[in-house]
């Protein structure tokens, strides 16, 4: 029963992630896209954590941790290097 709930949640989050993709495509600014992709990435991390429980494979949690790190780095790096003066953080 719980497994179904986890999978259903994951499915709902996938749908929401696809919805957020609209903002990532439309923009209009680079920062809008960064924010959208960051939300998408957070959703992905959560989905990975859900799958770890639902499919009973703990290694998904490690992947989720690494993905969360990469997601963070992505946001920071793009924010930093799309700005000309290059002094964000």
């Amino acid at each position, binding site marked *: 029963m719980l497994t179904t709930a986890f999978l259903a949640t994951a499915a709902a989050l996938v749908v929401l992630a696809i919805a957020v993709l609209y903002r990532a495509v439309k923009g209009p600014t680079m920062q809008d896209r960064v924010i959208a992709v960051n939300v998408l990435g957070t959703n992905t991390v959560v989905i990975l954590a859900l799958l770890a429980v639902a499919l009973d494979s703990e290694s998904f949690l490690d992947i989720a*941790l690494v993905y969360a790190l990469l997601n963070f780095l992505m946001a920071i790096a793009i924010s930093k290097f799309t700005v000309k003066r290059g002094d964000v953080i």
Partner: protein
Amino acid sequence: MLVPVGESVTLRQTVGYAVGVAEETDASAIHFVVPVAWHSAGDVEPAVRREVETLLDRVQVWAREDASGTTPAVETAIIGEEQYMFSPDDYAGVLADYADAHGVERIVVDPEYSPGGNVPLLRAMEVSLVERGYTVEEAPVETPVRRSRLTRPGGAVQFGLLFAVSFLFYQLLGGFAIVTGDTFDLFYELVTGTIAAGIVAGSLHRVTMSERPRLRRLGVQLVRLSLYVPYLLYEIVKSNILITFIILHPRLPIEPRLTRVRVAVWGGSPLTTLANSITLTPGTLTVRADGQYLYVHALFPSAREGLFAGTLERAVRFVYYGRAAAAVATPEERGDTELLQRPEEDADAGASVRSGEGSSEETRREGERSEEARTEDERSEEARTRDDRSDDDRTPPGDGGGA
């Protein structure tokens, strides 16, 4: 003659030079002063204060050693305790006040002196002092070795602390083999953990911590932090419900404004904690931190009021400085809040950015440079006039914008 001093490799030489100059020019007195960045409202540990006092004692002894015959009077002082110093201008202002109070016009600076700890402020501070009309000269000292700014003298405490944290983190990721009870696993995890943590601590303990950690104080702060986290979670959930209502409302009743708050927390990690907490609480988002000024984007009036009432700020002060410091007045009462309409500091610079597309980048840079050069007084003056101007079409801060 005025000599700002602090821990530096060339302090001894600077003292010698200053005494020499004072004797040549028949100066009546040499003032050695330490501008301190800690605020007296924070619970400054006696140990910190003692360190500064020892430094001044040492300087005094050196000055006596160097003086020959007609000794100019040597005076020492700790200054700036009542002020929040952050920018080079703040330091220059504090020094200028002291200089004026004692009729001093000549300032000798130790080139290796670093008022802001690991933040390079010295050159900007000198420029600001020259602009105020003082004679500033750097003591001609020989620097033994040029230390790169990233590393600082390390110590066993830094190494130990970083090692412990890395080791614990490694074991956390390894899933605590200690719990599973397999002897080989346990041995393996402990050995690899020790090696990994050793490498991390050995290579980075000079970089990670900007000052010597005080373990007891760190412990107290962690305890207070554990009180703060539930409070923060409560705030997050509470205001998230509000923001949910607003986002799902058909008319989207938002009223976003960019605001600027001068916060009363001092130092890197308290500011980071506060800025991140502000961002985490729905309705407010820290856009930029500039010294003690936080540029906060507030989505609706009640979020803005909450920010100006400074509840989070007080909580962060409690975490880092204890209960006594929580009693500082709210940003609103201090008059440290203002509304900004646009990102540009300077309304004129903003206008020219809009009109001239081609040279926009250049104009903006120029605007910012002049902003940095401006003195504190002028800045607050400008803030006041801006507030006046904005009164007719905007709700002034703290005047019941929640209608």
